[in-house]
């Protein structure tokens, strides 16, 4: 019970961090069809911007400024580069973002160095919020939960209660029709790309000091975010939200559930010994492969339900 509850909390916090990252990507991906490989780079830039800004004027202004900087950069990228590449189709866009990711990584290395930077949790949040079965629940993790929930609500309201939100939503499902109705689709694209970058930047501000701010953070966070987006389904923010939570919880529980296939077979009365075929594979405990489960789930979902969990369009 104790482990269950703590793990539930752990999974929730991690899942919400994933959601912050994935929500921006899912918006960009669904709307523009751009599989934005540079999305995790925006997350990294958010963390680095926050580090630099917080050194001068503190963490709280950085919480606002860093995502705005990321958004501005995203808007510039969309207006002056991506829009040109867009004419040449999705493959060109994808390659463009791959190149961009490399350039951002190199740029970060040149600007901030190859080592991790001391971007720290603000002192007011650097304490235990409450104790649960002798473990601290760190105040900053509570803060992360709060921010991500606020973000979810804000996006939800923006998409369902505002005019631009309605246009975006329409474009999510019927992008051609929206253009035909006379909306300024390029501007909507810019807004979506900038908005997605803001969300990634915010995730960076929050995640950078919770995890570690270093030049490889984009490369390590990138793959899992794609998994979440594809798993959740194209064009569905709710699907993305649910997928994030599932990924967070699956990875968390995989660690604490110490079983292997051999244990399952033993329950069925089949004993696995060293001479059993594939004994090596069968006896691998779940925690050892826990971090790979999302990728396994990605493959399964693509095979069984290619549209993803709640997807409304084909990938």
């Amino acid at each position: 019970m104790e482990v269950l509850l703590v793990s539930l909390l752990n999974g929730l916090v991690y899942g919400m961090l994933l959601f912050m990252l994935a929500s921006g990507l899912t918006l960009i991906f669904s709307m523009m069809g751009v599989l934005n490989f540079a999305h995790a780079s925006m997350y990294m830039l958010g963390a680095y911007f926050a580090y630099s800004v917080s050194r001068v004027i503190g963490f709280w202004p950085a919480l606002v400024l860093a995502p705005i900087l990321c958004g501005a950069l995203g808007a510039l990228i969309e207006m002056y580069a991506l829009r040109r590449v867009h004419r040449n189709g999705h493959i060109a866009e994808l390659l463009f973002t791959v190149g961009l990711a490399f350039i951002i990584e190199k740029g970060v290395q040149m600007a901030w160095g190859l080592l991790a930077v001391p971007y720290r949790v603000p002192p007011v949040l650097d304490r235990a919020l409450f104790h649960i079965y002798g473990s601290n629940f760190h105040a900053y993790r509570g803060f992360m939960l709060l921010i991500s929930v606020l973000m979810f609500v804000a996006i939800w309201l923006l998409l369902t209660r505002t005019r631009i939100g309605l246009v975006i939503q329409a474009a999510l499902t019927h992008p051609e029709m929206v253009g035909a109705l006379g909306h300024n689709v390029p501007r909507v694209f810019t807004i979506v790309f900038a908005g997605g970058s803001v969300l990634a930047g915010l995730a960076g501000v929050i995640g950078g000091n919770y995890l570690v701010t270093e030049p490889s953070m984009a490369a390590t966070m990138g793959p899992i975010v794609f998994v979440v987006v594809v798993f959740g389904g194209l064009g569905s923010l709710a699907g993305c939200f649910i997928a994030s939570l599932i990924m967070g919880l699956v990875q968390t529980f995989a660690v604490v559930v110490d079983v292997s296939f051999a244990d399952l077979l033993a329950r069925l009365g089949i004993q696995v010994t060293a001479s059993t075929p594939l004994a090596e594979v069968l006896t691998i405990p779940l925690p050892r492969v826990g971090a790979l489960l999302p990728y396994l789930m990605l493959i399964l979902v693509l095979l069984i339900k290619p549209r993803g969990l709640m997807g409304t369009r084909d990938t």
Partner: protein
Amino acid sequence: MRQLKRLICLLLAGVLTLWTGIGTVGAQQGTIKVMYTDPLSGPFAQVGDQNLQQFKYILDYINGRGGAVGRKFELVSFDNKSQPSEALLALKSATDQNMPVIMQCSGSNIAAALIEGVDKHNERNPNNRIVYVNCGAVATELTNEKCSYWHFRMDAHVGMKAETMVRALPKDVTKVYLLNQDYLFGQSVQHDVKAFLAKLRPDVKVVGDELIPLGKVKDFSPYITKIKAAGAQALLTGNWGPDMTLLIKSGMDSGLDIRYYTMYAHLGGGATAIGPAGNGKVRSVMAFHENIAVETGKTDTEGWTKQFRSSHDFDFYAAGFRTIFEFLQAAMNKAGSADPVKFAAALEGLTITDMLGHQVTMRKADHQILSEYFVGVFSKGVKYDSEKTGLGWKTETTVLPKDLDQPNTCNMKRPS
């Protein structure tokens, strides 16, 4: 008049070219060239870059003290991008230029390729041999099953580091948790730590033993929950990079108040990532930290590393690198030659005094260095802090070279 001016200019330029040309040629023939290959680009560029800067500092010192056999050492670097094939290109380039030494520090897979490459080359080219100095590839096999006469390992191997870690466990710690990365290195740490626990500390119980996928885990809090539930008093890990820093950060955030024993927390970026929360909790198995000289009163060494601090933006950690060049210097001077055949023979079994005043030996049987090793604890109130965090390393355990004289299975073929 104008023509005269032109003539003078031409003459001057000619003389200048000639003079500089002769200068470089002379210098090239005069120096003892050492090929250094490590990742200098890509995700591990930081390691190679910091090593290179420390090597340069050390060479200035060694060359200032006469180099070897009246010649100065010169370092030539070659980016191997963490690829064995690229490292072999470095070897080719070194042998083409008749360099006597090739040096490589990161990656046991690269080291294995180099040992093989050097062996083959030396067998085929008896007049152009090369010595391979391994400055940090730590797989135990390299000086056991795979040992070679031309390979000299100037760093403790995994087994020695594991033994140092186990020896540092205080008497009141009886429950430990092992967590390592699921690949060759992590598995050898896991295996060796368990072996030395059984041998040296039979009273210690392993309450958890875990392997994690390399570089895939972002959130370590579930592991922390497990470690806590297992009632461990100490966490023993060979993790490096984000797998180490994220693990420790997560433990600090959850208030898991145990001893953290690592092998790499003292290397570049570790102190920054762990931060003040690690005070008195995080330990690392290491060959050197800047406060050892202070603790043992070696003022000359302290002054030397202090000078490095003042001119670089990171701390000096590579005392072993200075030992390498002191070994090469001593062996070449003893042999009276920079010819690999001659100084390799002189290097075998050689004992010198390192910068901390300990007697270190290049064991003849397997070409494994026997040097002192330390376990430091990350603490406040030390004279030299790490990476400007205000915290630095304080020695908790010192293991002498004689205590790390582990048996080996090397069956070395010596050139006849």
